[in-house]
């Protein structure tokens, strides 16, 4: 089975970490949960959320107060679009994202499979004098 065929389906987040060059792992959102779907027809949809998010007082998802929306945005990430494999590279071509800067972007990841887990890693990022990657460990959703 090709990596492309292996990736198709829905995955649950088992671990999400920033991994520094010395191996230090830092979770961007402690206790995060996530669901990522890769469809056979080439679409992907990723949602990652922190624990203990606070409900809005009102009943309009797009009508939150400044405080409510700031909290909601600081604890969740969701984006979708097309996906394709190029060798071991997984490309997400983002069509829509709650984070507007990613719309239209092509994001390159590497993938590897260990048993029933998929590990999706960003290319190295350098910021503030440090080089790190973000790693998503996924298990198949049942």
């Amino acid at each position, binding site marked *: 089975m090709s990596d492309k065929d292996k990736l198709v*389906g*829905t995955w649950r987040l088992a671990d999400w970490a920033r991994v520094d060059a010395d191996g230090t792992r830092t979770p*961007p*959102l402690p206790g995060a*949960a*996530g*669901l990522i*779907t890769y*469809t*056979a*027809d*080439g*679409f992907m*949809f990723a*949602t990652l*959320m922190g624990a203990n*998010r*606070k*409900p*809005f007082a*009102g*009943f*309009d*998802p*797009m*009508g*939150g107060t*400044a*405080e409510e*929306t*700031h909290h*909601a*945005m*600081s*604890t*969740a*990430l*969701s984006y*979708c*679009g097309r996906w394709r494999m190029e060798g071991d590279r997984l490309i997400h071509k983002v*069509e*829509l*994202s*709650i*984070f*507007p*800067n*990613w*719309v239209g972007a092509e994001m390159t990841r590497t993938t590897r499979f260990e048993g029933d887990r998929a590990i999706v890693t960003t290319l190295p990022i350098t910021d503030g004098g440090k080089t790190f990657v973000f790693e998503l460990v996924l298990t198949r*959703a049942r």
Partner: protein
Amino acid sequence: MPAKSEQLIGSWRLQKWIITDETGAVKEPMGPKPWGLLIYAADGYMSAMLAMPEARGRFAGNDPLGGSPEEAHRAMASCHAYVGRWRIDGERVVHDVEMALWPNMVGTSQVRYYRLDGHRIVLKTPPMTRKGASGVAELTWTRVT
């Protein structure tokens, strides 16, 4: 006749989103050209994202979780997303929400009356409020694949 669930499996793009209030007035909560993607996956999971592209702007920084209150408010006021499982129940498709940008939606079952017409599906909701418009929503989606 109720559709078979296989007829819903696939990816759908939002074509039209209207909300009709009790006086019959019609509003487009995300404007005349909303953007949306709806996936009914073969494994029973569903994902939906709906947005008003022209209202979105960009964040000054590159951290998706690190926007300012103003940036976060603009992003959340112009985008709605949730994921979970889906099932057919007669003339209704039910979305059992596991995760949502709007925290209130987590754990709810969202009931949609559906009408399939070739490569198009219309989902009709119970009364709700979306971006200040209240009433019954009708979302028209076109099959991509």
